[in-house]
């Protein structure tokens, strides 16, 4: 009997050696005369266990990890391929690992389970069921389902997806577009990459449903150039979906048309801002547009356009398959459904944790993350990427909920959680936030373009021992500068850079003097 052995194909799993492990396993299987079928599945998101090798058994999938090249020989000697559990790297049934078991995987239901390159595998695991249901509904009925689900944009702004779709549906036009924002530039985030590499067909299905909902026949996905593997795998999935009739002029025999084209970004963080992304797609500098008009009215090439993040669109198939209520039943307050949180930075068990809204930050970094990787005391957590606030321990009991975070002057953003230990100097991080804004600003508005440079200079003055007597005056000036950036910038780049700056100064003021 052929035994199935799984080794993930994923940027982080590969960075930890998965490609080498995969070829070693194939070679040793030949040497040992064992008949195996090697499947390159996607990552489960339990990254500290990568490369996580799994084998099929009667009880379920048994895992071994993290596997190094030196372990492969002993794995074969101990016949790991039979699911034998006595190897020291055996983790037992993967589904029973608490980190995974305690999650609510809706958007990532297939993560690590299927072969992302196999459309048959996708279909066998409930793939295209959401699309099938959507094809039976009118455009308005699809939009209503998404509204009822309570889904809000997972890119960071948390705008209700259904309302955005309604605006595009109601805008009369010959041509409308679906644009998927896969310019995942926030440090500490990788959930978009996991979908692109690990379950690309769910995103294709989600984009198709969005097209049906608003009457768009063309979709673009804008992927950052830092994700070459994701681009390759996603392009492969587009070809597969087209050949199987899920994209093209007659989707699933319905007579409906929808096509997708992948476009690569070029290393500009600002292109994650939706209007800048549209400029870039049109072949120009990624300069932010003034809103209104909203992209939903005048978007790509001047046409009504849905611009949604990867996770928003990838959450649509399960909503259409299992029903809006199924999704909306998870979560708290106005934050419905689940959010894929990404534990990164100085954290022992780094990875992706999909949870219903409502758990606290402390539970997440302690129960799932198990503290810092360096073993030192945890000091600050940045939630929501480079434009998110740095939170001191007093705020770690905040529930993960858009409104609760907003009230505390923080953002959930795209769900990135970056942990720092006590060795960090937070004034350095405040300076970096301004520096990053200066490097990545599109330059269209003055508060962002110039303000960020003045911000770096001001923080340097704050840290200059010769200017200690001016400390309060410089702090006041920095505060005023932050006000101007928040109030006067065209988009979130300049408008939110003050979040990490202010929080780093406010909660960790003592760090100024140790510079």
């Amino acid at each position: 009997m052929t035994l199935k052995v799984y080794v993930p194909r994923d940027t982080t799993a590969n960075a930890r050696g998965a490609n080498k492990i995969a070829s070693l396993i194939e070679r040793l299987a030949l040497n040992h005369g064992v008949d195996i079928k090697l499947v390159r599945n996607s990552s489960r998101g339990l990254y500290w266990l990568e490369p996580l090798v799994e084998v099929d058994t009667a009880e379920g999938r048994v895992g071994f990890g993290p596997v190094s090249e030196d372990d492969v020989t002993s794995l074969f000697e101990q016949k790991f391929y039979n699911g034998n559990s006595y190897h020291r790297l055996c983790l037992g049934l993967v589904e029973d690992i608490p980190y995974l078991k305690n999650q609510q995987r809706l958007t990532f239901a297939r993560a690590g389970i299927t072969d992302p390159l196999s459309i048959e595998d996708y279909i066998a695991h409930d793939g295209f069921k959401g699309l099938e249901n959507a094809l039976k509904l009118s455009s308005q009925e699809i939009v209503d389902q998404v509204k009822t689900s309570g889904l809000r944009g997972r890119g960071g702004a948390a705008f209700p997806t259904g309302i955005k779709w309604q605006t595009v549906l109601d805008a009369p036009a010959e041509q409308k577009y679906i644009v998927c924002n896969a310019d995942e530039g926030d440090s500490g985030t990788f959930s978009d990459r996991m979908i692109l590499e690990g379950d690309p067909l769910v995103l294709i299905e989600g984009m198709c449903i969005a097209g049906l909902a608003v009457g768009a026949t063309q979709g673009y996905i804008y992927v950052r150039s830092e994700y070459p593997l994701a681009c390759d795998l996603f392009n492969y999935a587009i070809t597969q979906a087209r050949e199987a009739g899920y994209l093209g002029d007659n989707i699933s025999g319905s007579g409906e048309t929808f096509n997708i084209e992948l476009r690569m970004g070029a290393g500009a963080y600002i292109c994650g801002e939706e209007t800048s992304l549209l400029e870039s797609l049109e072949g120009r500098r990624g300069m932010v547009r003034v809103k209104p008009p909203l992209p939903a009215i005048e978007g790509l090439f001047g046409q009504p356009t849905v611009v949604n993040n990867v996770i928003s669109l990838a959450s649509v198939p399960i909503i259409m398959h299992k029903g809006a209520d199924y999704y909306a039943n998870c979560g708290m307050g106005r934050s419905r459904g689940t959010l894929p949180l990404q534990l990164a930075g100085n954290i022992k068990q780094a990875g992706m944790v999909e949870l219903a809204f409502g758990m606290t930050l402390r539970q997440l970094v302690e129960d799932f993350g198990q503290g810092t990787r360096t073993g030192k005391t945890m000091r600050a957590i940045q939630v929501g990427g480079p434009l998110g606030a740095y939170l001191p321990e007093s705020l770690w009991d905040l529930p993960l909920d858009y409104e609760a975070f907003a009230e505390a002057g923080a953002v959930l953003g795209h769900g990135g959680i970056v942990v720092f230990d006590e060795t960090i100097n937070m004034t350095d991080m405040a300076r970096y936030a301004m520096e990053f804004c200066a490097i990545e600003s599109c330059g269209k508005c003055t508060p962002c373009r110039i303000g960020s440079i003045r911000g770096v200079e001001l923080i340097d003055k704050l840290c200059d021992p010769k200017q200690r007597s001016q400390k309060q005056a410089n702090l006041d000036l920095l505060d005023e500068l932050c006000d101007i950036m928040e109030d006067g910038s065209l988009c979130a780049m300049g408008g939110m850079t003050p979040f990490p700056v202010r929080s780093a100064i406010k909660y960790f003021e003592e760090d100024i003097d140790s510079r």
Partner: protein
Amino acid sequence: MSTGDTEIGKNDLQNELLSIIEGLKEQPGALLPILHNIQSLFGYIPEEAIPLIASTLNISRADVHGVISFYHHFRRTKPGKHVIQICRAESCQAMGAVALEQHVKSVLSIDYHETTNNGKFSLEPVYCLGNCACSPSIAIADEVYGDMDTDKFDQLFNSLFFTPAKAGAI
């Protein structure tokens, strides 16, 4: 090199550029795909490409220059044989990226955006490789490496470029 050779070289370059530009010009928003294809063939955007792109897409040369200079990914000069990118973003900083970047700069004796005198290595900063679960990260060519520190960098650097078997590769 004789003048004749240079002319032939120039024509070859023009032809290669034109075949890329002509092949993609009909796409809506064709400029970025064109630049990507040129850079993946040559490693950078040769100066000669700019007037050709401008006239084919019916935009000004300034427009093309503006787009190339806006995006960090596009370069106007030939890179070293191997491009090393170091992630400077927060997650990597939380795990020691600042010390790592100082080390790499001193090993290569160059700063960011520079190429070693022998033309072998270029060093570029990058703001997130999506490998934040094992920070700090670097990338060499399109290959991402995580859990870096100064020792691991030295090992990797030596094993990629200075083992006897690989010595011919640099």
